[in-house]
Protein backbone atom coordinates (compact mmCIF):
# COMPACT_ATOMS: atom_id res chain seq x y z
CA UNK A 1 0.00 0.00 0.00
CA UNK A 2 2.31 2.69 -1.23
CA UNK A 3 -0.29 5.43 -0.77
CA UNK A 4 -0.20 5.09 3.01
CA UNK A 5 2.96 7.14 3.16
CA UNK A 6 1.25 10.43 2.40
CA UNK A 7 -1.71 12.32 1.04
CA UNK A 8 -3.00 11.49 -2.43
CA UNK A 9 -1.31 13.21 -5.35
CA UNK A 10 -2.66 16.56 -6.50
CA UNK A 11 -5.21 15.91 -9.25
CA UNK A 12 -5.18 17.98 -12.45
CA UNK A 13 -7.51 21.01 -12.20
CA UNK A 14 -9.91 19.58 -14.77
CA UNK A 15 -10.49 16.50 -12.63
CA UNK A 16 -13.97 17.23 -11.30
CA UNK A 17 -13.75 14.44 -8.72
CA UNK A 18 -11.79 16.93 -6.65
CA UNK A 19 -15.02 18.92 -6.40
CA UNK A 20 -16.42 17.24 -3.37
CA UNK A 21 -19.86 17.39 -1.90
CA UNK A 22 -21.82 20.20 -3.55
CA UNK A 23 -23.78 22.14 -0.93
CA UNK A 24 -25.60 25.45 -1.60
CA UNK A 25 -22.62 27.53 -0.49
CA UNK A 26 -20.44 25.68 -2.98
CA UNK A 27 -22.92 26.23 -5.80
CA UNK A 28 -22.98 29.92 -4.92
CA UNK A 29 -19.20 30.00 -5.20
CA UNK A 30 -19.21 28.21 -8.57
CA UNK A 31 -21.93 30.51 -9.92
CA UNK A 32 -19.99 33.55 -8.75
CA UNK A 33 -16.82 32.46 -10.57
CA UNK A 34 -18.64 31.31 -13.71
CA UNK A 35 -20.65 34.53 -13.94
CA UNK A 36 -17.38 36.47 -13.94
CA UNK A 37 -16.01 34.41 -16.82
CA UNK A 38 -19.20 34.78 -18.87
CA UNK A 39 -19.28 38.52 -18.15
CA UNK A 40 -15.71 38.88 -19.38
CA UNK A 41 -16.72 37.22 -22.64
CA UNK A 42 -19.96 39.09 -23.33
CA UNK A 43 -19.11 42.52 -21.94
CA UNK A 44 -17.07 43.60 -25.01
CA UNK A 45 -20.03 42.70 -27.22
CA UNK A 46 -22.27 44.79 -24.99
CA UNK A 47 -19.92 47.76 -25.37
CA UNK A 48 -19.86 47.39 -29.15
CA UNK A 49 -23.58 46.83 -29.36
CA UNK A 50 -25.10 48.71 -26.41
CA UNK A 51 -28.73 48.59 -27.55
CA UNK A 52 -29.00 44.86 -28.01
CA UNK A 53 -31.67 44.01 -25.47
CA UNK A 54 -30.54 40.40 -25.02
CA UNK A 55 -27.01 41.45 -24.21
CA UNK A 56 -28.31 44.14 -21.84
CA UNK A 57 -30.49 41.76 -19.90
CA UNK A 58 -27.71 39.17 -19.76
CA UNK A 59 -25.21 41.75 -18.48
CA UNK A 60 -27.74 42.92 -15.89
CA UNK A 61 -28.44 39.38 -14.68
CA UNK A 62 -24.77 38.42 -14.54
CA UNK A 63 -23.67 41.60 -12.78
CA UNK A 64 -26.34 41.07 -10.12
CA UNK A 65 -25.49 37.38 -9.74
CA UNK A 66 -21.78 38.09 -9.48
CA UNK A 67 -22.22 41.09 -7.20
CA UNK A 68 -24.62 39.45 -4.77
CA UNK A 69 -22.43 36.41 -4.30
CA UNK A 70 -19.39 38.67 -4.07
CA UNK A 71 -21.11 40.57 -1.27
CA UNK A 72 -21.59 37.28 0.55
CA UNK A 73 -17.85 36.61 0.46
CA UNK A 74 -17.06 40.18 1.57
CA UNK A 75 -19.54 40.03 4.45
CA UNK A 76 -18.19 36.72 5.73
CA UNK A 77 -14.61 37.97 5.33
CA UNK A 78 -15.43 41.01 7.45
CA UNK A 79 -17.09 39.19 10.30
CA UNK A 80 -20.50 37.87 9.28
CA UNK A 81 -20.42 34.41 10.91
CA UNK A 82 -19.94 31.77 8.24
CA UNK A 83 -22.19 29.37 10.16
CA UNK A 84 -25.13 31.48 8.98
CA UNK A 85 -23.88 31.70 5.40
CA UNK A 86 -26.82 29.78 3.98
CA UNK A 87 -29.33 32.32 5.34
CA UNK A 88 -27.16 35.12 3.99
CA UNK A 89 -27.14 33.38 0.63
CA UNK A 90 -30.94 33.19 0.45
CA UNK A 91 -31.42 36.81 1.56
CA UNK A 92 -28.92 38.09 -1.01
CA UNK A 93 -30.42 35.90 -3.73
CA UNK A 94 -33.88 37.28 -2.97
CA UNK A 95 -32.58 40.86 -3.00
CA UNK A 96 -30.75 40.21 -6.26
CA UNK A 97 -33.85 38.71 -7.88
CA UNK A 98 -35.92 41.70 -6.76
CA UNK A 99 -33.35 44.12 -8.16
CA UNK A 100 -33.26 42.22 -11.43
CA UNK A 101 -37.03 42.27 -11.92
CA UNK A 102 -37.30 45.89 -10.86
CA UNK A 103 -34.68 46.98 -13.36
CA UNK A 104 -35.67 44.64 -16.16
CA UNK A 105 -39.43 44.76 -15.94
CA UNK A 106 -40.75 47.78 -14.05
CA UNK A 107 -38.44 50.09 -15.94
CA UNK A 108 -39.51 48.68 -19.27
CA UNK A 109 -39.07 51.98 -21.06
CA UNK A 110 -35.37 51.73 -20.33
CA UNK A 111 -35.13 48.13 -21.38
CA UNK A 112 -37.68 48.05 -24.20
CA UNK A 113 -37.96 44.39 -23.51
CA UNK A 114 -41.32 43.09 -22.37
Amino acid at each position, binding site marked *: *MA*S*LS*GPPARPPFWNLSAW*RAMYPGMWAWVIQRLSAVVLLVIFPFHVLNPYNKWLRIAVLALVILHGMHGLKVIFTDFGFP*ARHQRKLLWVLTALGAAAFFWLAYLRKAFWGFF
Partner: protein
Amino acid sequence: MVGGGVIFRVRRGGEAGDPQERYQTYAITPRPRMTVLDVLTSIQSEQDASLVFRYSCRVGMCGTCALRVNGRPRWACRTLITELGESVTLEPLANFPIIRDLAVDMTPFSDGLKRVRAWAEPTEAAASAPARIPPSSRERVRIDPHIECITCGICYSACSMLGHDPAFLGPAALNRAYTLVCDSRDAASAERLAEVSGEQGIWRCHSQFNCTEACPKGISPATAIQGLKRQAAASGAKSFVSSIIGGRAPGA
Protein backbone atom coordinates in the same frame (compact mmCIF):
# COMPACT_ATOMS: atom_id res chain seq x y z
CA MET B 1 -38.69 1.54 0.26
CA VAL B 2 -40.33 -0.69 -2.32
CA GLY B 3 -41.02 -4.15 -0.90
CA GLY B 4 -39.48 -3.03 2.38
CA GLY B 5 -35.90 -3.52 1.13
CA VAL B 6 -33.05 -1.07 0.64
CA ILE B 7 -30.16 -1.65 -1.75
CA PHE B 8 -26.71 -0.66 -0.52
CA ARG B 9 -23.92 -0.23 -3.09
CA VAL B 10 -20.68 -0.44 -1.18
CA ARG B 11 -17.26 0.48 -2.51
CA ARG B 12 -14.91 -2.48 -2.11
CA GLY B 13 -11.23 -2.98 -2.75
CA GLY B 14 -7.88 -1.58 -1.63
CA GLU B 15 -6.33 1.80 -2.33
CA ALA B 16 -7.66 4.03 -5.12
CA GLY B 17 -6.92 2.53 -8.53
CA ASP B 18 -6.73 -1.01 -7.15
CA PRO B 19 -7.74 -3.41 -9.96
CA GLN B 20 -10.00 -5.10 -7.40
CA GLU B 21 -11.94 -1.85 -6.88
CA ARG B 22 -15.67 -2.43 -7.39
CA TYR B 23 -19.11 -1.64 -6.03
CA GLN B 24 -20.84 -4.54 -4.35
CA THR B 25 -24.57 -4.59 -3.79
CA TYR B 26 -26.30 -5.78 -0.63
CA ALA B 27 -30.04 -5.91 0.04
CA ILE B 28 -31.05 -4.92 3.54
CA THR B 29 -34.40 -5.29 5.26
CA PRO B 30 -34.65 -2.15 7.36
CA ARG B 31 -35.29 -2.35 11.07
CA PRO B 32 -36.78 0.54 13.03
CA ARG B 33 -34.25 3.35 13.66
CA MET B 34 -31.59 1.50 11.70
CA THR B 35 -28.43 3.54 11.07
CA VAL B 36 -25.88 3.22 8.31
CA LEU B 37 -23.53 1.69 10.89
CA ASP B 38 -26.20 -0.92 11.76
CA VAL B 39 -26.37 -1.74 8.05
CA LEU B 40 -22.60 -2.24 7.88
CA THR B 41 -22.47 -4.46 10.95
CA SER B 42 -25.39 -6.50 9.66
CA ILE B 43 -23.72 -6.94 6.26
CA GLN B 44 -20.55 -8.01 8.03
CA SER B 45 -22.24 -10.51 10.35
CA GLU B 46 -24.87 -11.87 7.98
CA GLN B 47 -23.71 -11.44 4.39
CA ASP B 48 -20.02 -10.73 3.96
CA ALA B 49 -17.52 -11.04 6.79
CA SER B 50 -14.75 -9.55 4.67
CA LEU B 51 -16.22 -6.01 4.60
CA VAL B 52 -13.80 -3.50 6.13
CA PHE B 53 -15.02 -0.37 7.91
CA ARG B 54 -14.14 1.46 11.10
CA TYR B 55 -16.16 2.40 14.16
CA SER B 56 -15.79 2.52 17.88
CA CYS B 57 -18.32 4.33 20.10
CA ARG B 58 -21.53 3.91 18.03
CA VAL B 59 -23.01 7.04 19.63
CA GLY B 60 -21.46 9.98 17.81
CA MET B 61 -18.56 10.64 20.14
CA CYS B 62 -15.41 9.08 18.72
CA GLY B 63 -15.53 10.28 15.12
CA THR B 64 -14.21 7.05 13.61
CA CYS B 65 -17.24 5.93 11.57
CA ALA B 66 -17.27 8.70 8.96
CA LEU B 67 -17.80 7.74 5.32
CA ARG B 68 -19.56 9.09 2.25
CA VAL B 69 -23.26 8.33 1.99
CA ASN B 70 -24.65 9.07 -1.47
CA GLY B 71 -21.61 11.24 -2.16
CA ARG B 72 -21.75 13.32 1.02
CA PRO B 73 -19.58 12.73 4.09
CA ARG B 74 -21.64 11.75 7.16
CA TRP B 75 -21.23 9.83 10.42
CA ALA B 76 -22.48 6.27 9.94
CA CYS B 77 -23.60 5.76 13.53
CA ARG B 78 -25.95 8.78 13.57
CA THR B 79 -27.33 8.60 10.05
CA LEU B 80 -30.75 6.94 9.93
CA ILE B 81 -31.38 5.02 6.71
CA THR B 82 -34.97 6.29 6.56
CA GLU B 83 -33.53 9.63 5.32
CA LEU B 84 -31.66 8.02 2.45
CA GLY B 85 -34.08 6.50 -0.06
CA GLU B 86 -34.20 3.05 -1.63
CA SER B 87 -30.72 2.91 -3.06
CA VAL B 88 -27.74 4.08 -1.05
CA THR B 89 -24.10 4.30 -2.12
CA LEU B 90 -21.43 3.99 0.57
CA GLU B 91 -17.88 5.10 -0.17
CA PRO B 92 -14.81 5.92 1.93
CA LEU B 93 -14.12 9.55 2.84
CA ALA B 94 -12.63 11.59 0.00
CA ASN B 95 -9.20 13.29 0.23
CA PHE B 96 -7.70 10.42 2.24
CA PRO B 97 -5.64 7.43 1.09
CA ILE B 98 -7.87 4.36 1.21
CA ILE B 99 -6.72 1.37 3.24
CA ARG B 100 -9.42 -1.04 2.16
CA ASP B 101 -13.17 -0.90 1.35
CA LEU B 102 -14.50 1.95 3.54
CA ALA B 103 -11.53 2.44 5.86
CA VAL B 104 -9.19 5.36 5.16
CA ASP B 105 -5.77 6.29 6.47
CA MET B 106 -6.21 9.38 8.69
CA THR B 107 -2.52 10.35 8.57
CA PRO B 108 -2.93 13.51 6.43
CA PHE B 109 -5.57 14.73 8.88
CA SER B 110 -3.46 14.14 11.99
CA ASP B 111 -0.45 15.66 10.21
CA GLY B 112 -2.46 18.87 9.82
CA LEU B 113 -3.19 18.90 13.55
CA LYS B 114 0.51 18.43 14.25
CA ARG B 115 1.45 21.25 11.87
CA VAL B 116 -0.75 23.73 13.78
CA ARG B 117 0.54 22.34 17.13
CA ALA B 118 -2.94 21.31 18.23
CA TRP B 119 -1.94 20.99 21.86
CA ALA B 120 -1.95 23.59 24.65
CA GLU B 121 1.30 25.48 25.16
CA PRO B 122 0.50 27.55 28.24
CA THR B 123 2.05 30.85 29.21
CA GLU B 124 4.07 30.82 32.42
CA ALA B 125 1.22 32.44 34.33
CA ALA B 126 -1.32 29.91 33.02
CA ALA B 127 0.99 27.01 33.81
CA SER B 128 1.55 28.06 37.41
CA ALA B 129 -1.97 29.04 38.51
CA PRO B 130 -5.50 28.44 37.23
CA ALA B 131 -6.59 31.26 34.93
CA ARG B 132 -9.89 32.98 35.65
CA ILE B 133 -11.76 33.31 32.37
CA PRO B 134 -15.50 33.97 32.75
CA PRO B 135 -17.77 32.14 30.29
CA SER B 136 -19.07 35.52 29.16
CA SER B 137 -15.59 36.82 28.28
CA ARG B 138 -14.89 37.77 24.69
CA GLU B 139 -12.42 34.93 24.20
CA ARG B 140 -14.79 32.23 25.55
CA VAL B 141 -17.61 33.55 23.37
CA ARG B 142 -15.32 33.29 20.34
CA ILE B 143 -13.83 29.90 21.24
CA ASP B 144 -16.83 27.96 22.58
CA PRO B 145 -18.62 27.24 19.26
CA HIS B 146 -15.40 25.60 17.98
CA ILE B 147 -14.40 23.16 20.72
CA GLU B 148 -16.58 20.09 20.18
CA CYS B 149 -14.58 18.62 17.28
CA ILE B 150 -14.48 14.81 17.31
CA THR B 151 -11.80 14.65 14.58
CA CYS B 152 -14.03 12.63 12.30
CA GLY B 153 -12.54 13.99 9.05
CA ILE B 154 -15.93 14.81 7.54
CA CYS B 155 -15.00 18.45 6.89
CA TYR B 156 -11.70 17.26 5.40
CA SER B 157 -13.59 15.03 2.99
CA ALA B 158 -16.11 17.77 2.07
CA CYS B 159 -13.44 20.36 1.20
CA SER B 160 -12.91 20.81 -2.53
CA MET B 161 -9.77 22.86 -1.90
CA LEU B 162 -8.20 19.80 -0.26
CA GLY B 163 -9.15 17.85 -3.36
CA HIS B 164 -7.01 20.26 -5.34
CA ASP B 165 -4.20 20.69 -2.85
CA PRO B 166 -3.53 17.77 -0.50
CA ALA B 167 -0.97 19.93 1.35
CA PHE B 168 -3.71 22.31 2.54
CA LEU B 169 -4.04 22.21 6.33
CA GLY B 170 -7.77 21.65 6.04
CA PRO B 171 -10.78 22.85 8.05
CA ALA B 172 -10.40 20.87 11.30
CA ALA B 173 -6.74 21.76 11.92
CA LEU B 174 -7.45 25.44 11.26
CA ASN B 175 -10.50 25.28 13.51
CA ARG B 176 -8.30 23.89 16.28
CA ALA B 177 -5.65 26.53 15.66
CA TYR B 178 -8.32 29.23 16.02
CA THR B 179 -9.40 27.98 19.46
CA LEU B 180 -5.78 28.17 20.63
CA VAL B 181 -4.91 31.49 19.00
CA CYS B 182 -7.95 33.09 20.67
CA ASP B 183 -7.02 31.67 24.07
CA SER B 184 -5.23 34.14 26.38
CA ARG B 185 -3.47 31.18 28.11
CA ASP B 186 -1.73 30.16 24.89
CA ALA B 187 1.96 31.00 24.61
CA ALA B 188 2.45 29.85 21.01
CA SER B 189 -0.13 31.98 19.21
CA ALA B 190 2.44 33.87 17.15
CA GLU B 191 4.00 30.63 15.87
CA ARG B 192 0.59 29.14 15.17
CA LEU B 193 -0.53 32.25 13.30
CA ALA B 194 2.68 32.12 11.25
CA GLU B 195 2.08 28.44 10.41
CA VAL B 196 -1.55 28.91 9.37
CA SER B 197 -0.86 32.11 7.40
CA GLY B 198 1.06 30.32 4.67
CA GLU B 199 -0.28 29.54 1.23
CA GLN B 200 -1.32 26.08 2.41
CA GLY B 201 -3.13 27.52 5.41
CA ILE B 202 -5.99 29.99 5.68
CA TRP B 203 -5.44 31.63 2.29
CA ARG B 204 -6.04 28.33 0.51
CA CYS B 205 -9.65 28.50 1.78
CA HIS B 206 -11.93 29.92 -0.91
CA SER B 207 -15.00 30.40 1.30
CA GLN B 208 -17.08 27.61 -0.20
CA PHE B 209 -18.35 26.62 3.28
CA ASN B 210 -18.62 22.88 2.55
CA CYS B 211 -16.98 22.18 5.93
CA THR B 212 -19.62 24.21 7.72
CA GLU B 213 -22.45 22.45 5.90
CA ALA B 214 -21.02 18.99 6.53
CA CYS B 215 -19.77 19.06 10.15
CA PRO B 216 -21.97 16.70 12.16
CA LYS B 217 -21.16 18.56 15.39
CA GLY B 218 -22.49 21.85 14.04
CA ILE B 219 -19.06 23.45 14.09
CA SER B 220 -18.26 26.02 11.44
CA PRO B 221 -14.57 25.62 10.63
CA ALA B 222 -15.07 28.32 7.98
CA THR B 223 -15.98 30.81 10.72
CA ALA B 224 -12.72 29.91 12.46
CA ILE B 225 -10.79 30.34 9.21
CA GLN B 226 -12.40 33.76 8.62
CA GLY B 227 -11.39 34.72 12.17
CA LEU B 228 -7.80 33.62 11.55
CA LYS B 229 -7.75 35.52 8.24
CA ARG B 230 -8.77 38.72 10.00
CA GLN B 231 -6.13 38.20 12.70
CA ALA B 232 -3.45 37.46 10.11
CA ALA B 233 -4.47 40.51 8.06
CA ALA B 234 -4.41 42.72 11.16
CA SER B 235 -0.96 41.55 12.21
CA GLY B 236 0.29 41.92 8.62
CA ALA B 237 -1.09 45.47 8.47
CA LYS B 238 0.53 46.28 11.80
CA SER B 239 3.97 45.15 10.71
CA PHE B 240 3.54 46.96 7.37
CA VAL B 241 2.70 50.23 9.13
CA SER B 242 5.55 49.86 11.59
CA SER B 243 7.98 49.14 8.74
CA ILE B 244 6.86 52.38 7.02
CA ILE B 245 7.17 54.36 10.24
CA GLY B 246 10.51 52.66 10.87
CA GLY B 247 11.61 53.61 7.33
CA ARG B 248 10.88 57.30 8.01
CA ALA B 249 12.65 57.33 11.33
CA PRO B 250 15.46 59.91 11.53
CA GLY B 251 18.79 58.52 10.50
CA ALA B 252 17.17 55.52 8.81
